[in-house]
């Protein structure tokens, strides 16, 4: 009896060893692209897929600041022509929005992300390989009154996935993400009006235009990516600004 048990155990124990599932690096890249924790910044709330659809067919009704990623590895330029190197394009997102460090992309993380982007552009495929028009006007001026009845719809398509519900922020990406329009109005309605502005509501709406078009660049702060005029039209932005008003 003792020998039988020992034999059974001897046969079973090797089978108890861990098994290894080998996956391509692109699979790791796909996981990284969907993980806001990948940049290891406590302030980051974004994953790559927060702002980019993987394929155009997955955009749906959303208005996203980033272009679809299919074909990105074959594109000749990025960021509206500001750079011609994929590594630099990704590094900008990684450092400016996701608050990671550039050296992350020189190691395993970058290697996996690149492998994933490559896998989205198989040999012979030209889908998504054309440059994506992205125009970010440097000069921002008041857009005038829009259609207030459309503001909610624009919000839902362009803003809600990060900022959550209007007024409460319910469902926003994190506690540091501003609650709109309250936070914006609190921050800007009482400011000394810059030259050229006589009306506070016009001013705060222009601040919103600036934030949408410049994101965290050109004098503003934060981590928000900018929306190009191709991604979010001036008409949409004009309607969106109707959510904002100063007393």
């Amino acid at each position: 009896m003792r020998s039988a048990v020992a034999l059974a155990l001897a046969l079973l124990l090797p089978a108890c060893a861990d098994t290894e599932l080998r996956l391509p690096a692109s699979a790791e890249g796909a996981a990284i692209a969907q993980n806001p924790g990948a940049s290891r910044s406590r302030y980051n709330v974004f994953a790559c897929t927060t702002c980019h659809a993987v394929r155009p067919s997955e955009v749906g009704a959303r208005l996203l600041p980033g272009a679809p990623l299919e074909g990105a590895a074959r594109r000749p330029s990025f960021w509206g022509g500001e750079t011609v190197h994929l590594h630099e394009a990704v590094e900008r997102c990684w450092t400016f929005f996701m608050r990671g460090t550039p050296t992350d992309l020189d190691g395993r993380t970058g290697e996996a992300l690149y492998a994933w982007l490559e896998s989205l552009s198989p040999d012979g495929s030209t889908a998504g390989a054309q440059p994506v028009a992205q125009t970010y006007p440097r000069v921002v001026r008041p857009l005038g009154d829009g259609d207030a009845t459309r503001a909610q719809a624009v919000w839902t398509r362009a803003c809600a996935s990060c900022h959550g519900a209007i007024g409460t922020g319910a469902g926003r990406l994190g506690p540091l993400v501003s609650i709109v329009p309250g936070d914006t109005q609190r921050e800007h309605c009482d400011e000394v009006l810059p030259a050229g502005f006589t009306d506070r509501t016009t001013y705060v709406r222009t601040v919103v235009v600036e934030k949408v078009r410049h994101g965290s660049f050109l004098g503003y702060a934060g981590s928000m990516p900018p929306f190009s005029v191709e991604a979010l039209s001036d008409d949409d932005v004009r309607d969106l600004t109707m959510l904002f008003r100063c007393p």
Partner: protein
Amino acid sequence: MPHRPLPIPLAASLLLAFCLAGCGEERVVYDRLDASAWGAGCSDPGIPDGGLGYVTNSLMNSVAVLDLGAGTVRATHPVGVGPLAENGPHHLAVDLARSVLYSPLSFPAAAIPAGPHAEHGSSDTPGIFVKRSLCDFRLLGQVDVDPNPGDMALSADGRTAYVSHFDLRRAQSNVGDPERQRSNLIVIDTATMTRTATIPVCVAAHGMVVSPDGRTVFMACYGDDALGVVSLDGPRPTVRLVYLGGSPPRNTTSPSYGPYSLALSPDGASVWLGCAVANVLIAYDVASGALDESRLTRRLPGKAWFPGFSPDGSTMVVPTQGRDSVTRLSTGPGMALRDQRYFTPEECTLPHQVAYGPDGLYYLVCEGRHTSDPARSQPGSILALHPDDLRTVRSFPVGVFPDAIVFAGGGAR
């Protein structure tokens, strides 16, 4: 109480259950890439026999590459690293041995009405010194420098870069505190792209060169009306200011001479200071360590910018703005005027730099019309001028606000 062993079947069952509970643990292992990530790089910049010229388009965040032999613009490469902003690549240097290009990016003051927040002003934005591959212009490294970087120089061995800072904001916001008004010379190890020294030199320094032996950096000190001589010999750098008026100026924010540009003669014996306020050039004799009053130009037709020299150093060609022109002068005592050419706006607007090319032509950087609103600006051009009479041999259309040209190949030094 005596310990009573478990019955064998029970012990075996427990062991089996324990073992099986840990069975089937699946560990995911990802393959590594075979190829280098982010695509294959390149190492050969493909410099043709006639050589290439590299020109900064300072309001387009790019560098234009001129094929000197073919007389064409071969490519224009983005060089900015700051999204959406004017990155302001002004000056540049090429290290052909390492196949790299350097340029300090000078983010401008937010003078344009970009939006309510830009109006608050961001002229204290640090500059960024970038290193890019000469082959495909990919970014190889970057390091922050002070706001408003101006000129740069590269040591002969390519291991050290020097960056000046034309920091008028610092000068204006620290009036009454001369120490705080001074801008820094920043020294950078180009291999690691790290700063190795920060040396306060003078008020709003711009044009600069490093001596061939690498021991001295000369800087045009605009606000101090002086030449800054920075000795890198010894354990600590030392700074000496050689005042054009003989003594420190009364007002460092309103200079009388305004030395802005600077050039080293081909033999390294003279440093030439171009003055943007007094419209003159004057030589500094390196051996004697003093200004050479016998080599002071008469008042030129406009602001004197960066001159170029004939290979033997006997003549120089000076671009001026105010009245747009180039003037050829003897570099010897008396500085005889050889010839002068004035430009119509169609020929050349705002000449800024002359450099002697590897093909024996003078290359003139014409800034073109530029405003803070890119939509209202017009591209500049590079003119290749015949060395005999300064006539235009060919013209290269480049981007908005070209600022400087350097060469590679074709016998370029």
